[in-house]
């Protein structure tokens, strides 16, 4: 990407990493994997905020937004939704070889795709996925790329080729200033993600959509998926019964009287 003169604005090349998650989280007791069949897939909530941020920045400063997603099955609808929100192109990384990837292997695979796409000033992602919730991917992408990271963003402004980010921490807000290139992970609620119209969705299906396999990324099987992952699931157990639950019986009024007595003591 060539640097334009200041008069023409910054022209941001932005990548947004998004994830489709199952609407309901259930575990297959035999394979230890999350059950996807028959469960609706949705965009991870805070990823929508990341897409909204990227599109807002593009509208203000000019530039291009690329969506990147890795998933076990067709997440076309999730990516189309992002394109309909205003992203310019989408890359869907899908291959059996990527199955069972932990966060390190996932970040590595995403970074390989990012590098193949070129140079980005800004890489955005959601703070965490609502299914596994690790919060690892953002910092790990930043580390693989050797760039600065800013996590927990609730506000962001680009000025004089620098980015000012307001971060939401445990009991305070911290504002930092960083230079490009930078990875920023955003908190849900930082903005109001736009809802695309049917026309937007129709137009989105005409935008560039790439599907990349392990071969397209030039990776070997032992670098990705379960074999490329240093963490493994050793076993899973159903949640333990830790209390003997007494079911309150009777009419609604009786039950509530009993409970009120218990609560008052």
């Amino acid at each position: 990407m060539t640097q334009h003169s200041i008069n023409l604005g910054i022209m941001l090349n932005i990548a947004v990493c998004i994830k489709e998650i199952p609407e309901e989280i259930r575990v297959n007791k035999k394979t230890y994997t999350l059950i996807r069949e028959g469960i609706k897939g949705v965009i991870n909530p805070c990823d929508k905020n990341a897409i909204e941020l990227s599109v807002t920045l593009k509208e203000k400063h000019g530039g291009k937004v690329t969506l990147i997603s890795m998933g076990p099955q067709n997440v076309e609808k999730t990516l189309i939704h992002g394109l309909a929100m205003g992203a310019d192109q989408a890359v869907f990384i899908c291959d059996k070889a990527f199955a069972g990837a932990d966060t390190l292997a996932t970040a590595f695979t995403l970074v390989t795709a990012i590098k193949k796409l070129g140079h980005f000033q800004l890489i955005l992602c959601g703070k965490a996925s609502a299914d596994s919730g690790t919060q690892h991917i953002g910092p790990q992408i930043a580390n693989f790329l050797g760039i600065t990271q800013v996590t927990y963003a609730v506000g962001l402004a680009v000025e004089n080729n620098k980015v000012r980010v307001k971060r939401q921490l445990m009991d305070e807000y911290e504002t930092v200033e960083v230079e490009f290139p930078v990875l920023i992970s955003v908190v849900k609620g930082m903005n109001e993600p736009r809802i695309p119209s049917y026309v937007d969705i129709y137009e989105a299906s005409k935008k560039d959509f790439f599907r990349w396999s392990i071969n397209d990324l030039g990776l070997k099987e032992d670098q990705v998926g379960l074999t490329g992952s240093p963490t493994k699931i050793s076993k899973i157990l159903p949640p333990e019964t830790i209390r003997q639950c007494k079911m309150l019986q009777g009419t609604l009024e009786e039950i509530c009287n009993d409970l009120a007595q218990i609560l008052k003591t």
Partner: protein
Amino acid sequence: MENNNQYRGVWVFVEHKGSQIEKCSLELLSLGRNLASELQVDLSTLVIGNLMGRLSEELMYYGVDVVYVVENPVLERYTTSPYHKITCDLIKEYRPEIVLFSSTPIGMDLAPRVACELKTGLVAHCVDLKIDKGKRQLLQICPYGDYMATMITTVKPQMVTVQPGVTPLPPRGEFKQGQTVQIEREIDIGNIKIIEVVKPEKADMGKIEESDVIIAIGRGVKNMSLAEKLAECLGGILGATQPIVDAGLLPESRMIGQTGKAVRPKVYIACGISGAGQHIVGMKNSGLIVAINTDEKAPIFKVADYGIIGDVSKVIPALIAALNR
């Protein structure tokens, strides 16, 4: 491939604020002490900051063998780049087999990047840690959907973040023990500049972990104001599961569970919550737990003392009436 046997010892990354050790870090010391004793190795802590003298001395009352201290005025407040560089360098140099962080904004900013740099795994939001002595392997226990998973890391060091609030605090010993090792390092603060830090005016952030009564709502709650009335009636505060927070009905500071807060109120009333594993880890240590749900098979009943099978929109008004009687 590195020889995994060269790694020995348990390390805890210590967070602090205003020369006070954060509670979450003390919890890690209690876990770390057990692991170190089982493995018959040293428990060490890594403290990065400015003027850490008193704090590092205080750590020696908690069964720590070695306190590694890196001090510099530019390290007063956490920023990713220098803390990351120091942590990675020291882990490479001293080769601990286990490194513990807290699942806090600092821990979650730092640990994944350190793990990535060291090309090792990281298991997030652990609620318990054990040792498989035969294999000298750390068993990392964390919620996984409705289940609890035991994870292992096949590379060293084995790194985890631990959910704050789920581990009891360790006792403070009567005498100091162990030693402090000051480490000199050239610090590169990177290209990040802190402009300002503000505390929000609204006292809404946090606080849920300090409330004696929590009315927690899940997807089965259609009417928020009912739950609010019940909270008011019992002098409690509203908490929520992730779907409720994701739907924007309550702020993130009210989220209870793996990705939110771990709480231990005296009374916890779970309304319309099915009880996914990731929610349960955040509330199972509460005093009295009451669950209201239409589905008698909901896993929430397994962690409740009292259960009511019914629709919260009918049960709550009746309960409020009963409480006012």
